[in-house]
Each structure stands twice: as structure tokens, then as C-alpha cells.
């Protein structure tokens, strides 16, 4: 298979790209996404939510090479045998590319790692609440939080919200979240890139990242939705991107949730006490 942009052999199909043009395609797509959706400017410092996995590491490098000022913020959930490996990779990448890195943890927030909080609970729900809380809390002072969400992630989230009947959450499909009191705006520069292409990018760039799947992921609805979407995509190429485009269009017309400061911590909350504070009470009892 030949590269669609030159005579070299393609290493990736759909679109067919050689190594050089795979890299430039990713950079161009991110630059175009940032430009068309006014995600951020070169005068701002971007806080990149980084796990050490392929998406966040690729995002750090792409944004830096496009000329953006980036700093990495990692949330260590406290999942034994998992997070320490990707955190090691993240530290290596940040050191090599002179990217400031801050690591915050569930244990600092709650007194316990995630592993000690999941009994009798759905792990992803606990993780999601504290992760979002810590990211927003520690990103105050930055202009935006950039996350590595890709087409696959976004398509899965949209379908999960529909399956669970959480239509009010459909408003969360944004390339850049609207301005809201207490929230650091979030941007998704990778939202139009397939997950598979991002992995290919890291391989072509010579990044040796540990493959790890969260041990709690197998229990998740997301894993089931992911597998189904991948099967549909095989039969109906382009379906995931269509789903994301539709989700973004619907989000515009979906009412935003109304937030007020949490009575305990002051972070945005839909209830008088935010879910993070409520959950901290539950896990410490």
C-alpha cells in the first residue's frame, strides 16, 4: 500500500500514510481542531491531564511541537500493579522533553488508594468522581485543561450516556467546554483522531510505552460498548466519527447542568455538597 501523500510505503491505512506523513497528519489535524474550535492560544499555558498512556503522552508531544506551553498533571488513583508503570513512563517522557509534571493522588485527597475504596462500589464511578475533582482543583491557575480523548473515547461516552438514559450528560460532548463558574475549561485536541492512529503515532515516534489496561476496566460498561463499537466500525467504517459529530451537534442544544459552590469545599456542585465530598464521607466511614 502506498502513502496517499508520497511514493513511500504506507504504515497506516485509512488514510494511507507513511511514517513521515502519519506524523504530519496528526499534527495538522490537531492544529486544525485547535484553530477551528478556538481551543487555546500560544499565549496560554495548557495543563495536560496525563496518565502516561499513549493518548496523553502523544498529546504532550504534539502540543509542545506545535508551539504550545504545556505542563503535565497526573492523577495517581492508587491502583497497584498498574498506575506505577505508566507514571514511570510519564516521568521519563517529561524529563526528556523538559515538561513540568505534577502528580496528585486519591490517597492525598481521601486517605486511601482506589484499591481500598472499591469494595461494594462500581470502581469506575469512584475513580471518575475523584479524578475530575482533582483535575479541576489542581488546574486552577491554568487557562485550560487538555485531555487526550479521541474519537473512540468520545463515541463510547456518547453511547454510554444514551444506554444509561443520562441524556442530561449529553451536553458534555464538547471540543471545548463552555465557560462555567469554578471550572477550568477543558479541551479535546484529539477528538477527531482515531485511537488506533494515536498508538501508531507513538510507535513511529519511537515512544516505548508500557501496554496496560486498567484492571478494573473489564468490569466496565465502557469495555462492552467499546467492543460493540469496534465490531460496528468493522462493518460500517466511519461510524464512530459520525456518532461523535452527532454528539457534538446535540450537545449544543442540550441544557447545561447548573452548578453552585459546594458548601464544604467550594468546588462546583449540582447538589449543596459536591459528589466528591459526599464520596469522601462514604469511603472514610
Amino acid at each position, binding site marked *: 500500500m502506498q502513502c496517499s501523500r508520497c511514493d513511500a510505503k504506507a504504515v497506516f491505512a485509512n488514510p494511507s500514510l507513511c511514517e513521515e506523513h502519519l506524523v504530519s497528519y496528526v499534527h495538522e489535524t490537531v492544529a486544525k481542531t485547535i484553530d477551528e474550535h478556538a481551543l487555546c492560544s500560544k499565549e496560554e499555558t495548557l495543563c495536560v491531564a496525563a496518565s502516561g498512556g499513549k493518548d496523553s503522552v502523544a498529546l504532550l508531544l504534539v502540543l509542545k511541537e506545535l508551539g504550545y506551553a504545556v505542563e503535565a498533571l497526573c492523577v495517581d488513583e492508587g491502583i497497584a500493579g498498574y498506575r506505577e508503570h505508566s507514571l514511570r513512563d510519564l516521568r521519563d517522557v517529561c524529563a526528556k522533553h523538559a515538561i513540568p509534571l505534577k502528580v496528585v493522588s486519591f490517597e492525598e485527597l481521601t486517605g486511601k488508594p482506589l484499591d481500598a475504596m472499591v469494595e461494594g462500589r462500581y470502581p469506575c464511578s469512584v475513580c471518575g468522581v475523584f479524578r475530575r475533582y482533582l483535575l479541576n482543583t489542581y488546574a486552577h491557575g491554568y487557562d485550560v485543561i487538555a485531555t487526550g480523548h479521541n474519537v473512540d473515547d468520545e463515541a463510547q461516552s456518547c453511547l454510554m450516556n444514551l444506554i444509561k438514559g443520562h441524556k442530561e450528560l449529553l451536553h458534555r460532548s464538547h471540543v471545548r467546554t463552555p465557560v462555567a463558574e469554578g471550572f477550568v475549561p477543558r479541551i479535546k485536541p484529539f477528538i477527531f483522531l482515531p485511537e488506533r492512529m494515536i498508538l501508531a503515532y507513538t510507535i513511529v515516534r519511537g515512544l516505548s510505552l508500557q501496554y496496560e489496561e486498567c484492571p478494573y476496566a473489564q468490569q466496565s460498561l465502557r469495555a462492552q460498548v467499546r467492543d460493540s463499537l469496534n465490531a460496528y*466500525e468493522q462493518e460500517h467504517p466511519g461510524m464512530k466519527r459520525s456518532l461523535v459529530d452527532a454528539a457534538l451537534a446535540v450537545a449544543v442544544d442540550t441544557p447545561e447542568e447548573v452548578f453552585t459552590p459546594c458548601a464544604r469545599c467550594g468546588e462546583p456542585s449540582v447538589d449543596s455538597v459536591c459528589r466528591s465530598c459526599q464520596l469522601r464521607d462514604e469511603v472514610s466511614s
Partner: protein
Amino acid sequence: MKVFIERTKETREVPVCSVDELLRMFSIILDEVLVVRNGKLVTEDEVLAETDEIKILSVISGG
């Protein structure tokens, strides 16, 4: 030829075939993997050789 499947950490011996045929042999969906031959990415139409070192890398990671 020897094939290493990252997600299950197993190495299997298979007859020479194309990447596409290899994935169908293991009932693997293309969107879930990338195939590396002798350290380089290959597309699904590529025909592999007996002496190739093949890795089927999992796209799925994280939570």
C-alpha cells in the same frame, strides 16, 4: 512464523499469510490492534514471511 499477541501475552506459531488473514485467524477486529513486522508497522494488505517477527499490539489501553 511466530506471532506475539500483546493483549494475552501469548506467542503462537502460524502459517504464512497476510496481516488481514492473520487477524481473521484470531478473530481480532482491525480497530483493536496494530501489527508490527520486524519492528515496523504494516498495513493489513501486507503479506508476511516465514522469518518475520510479528507482534499484534493492542490499541486498547487505560481504563
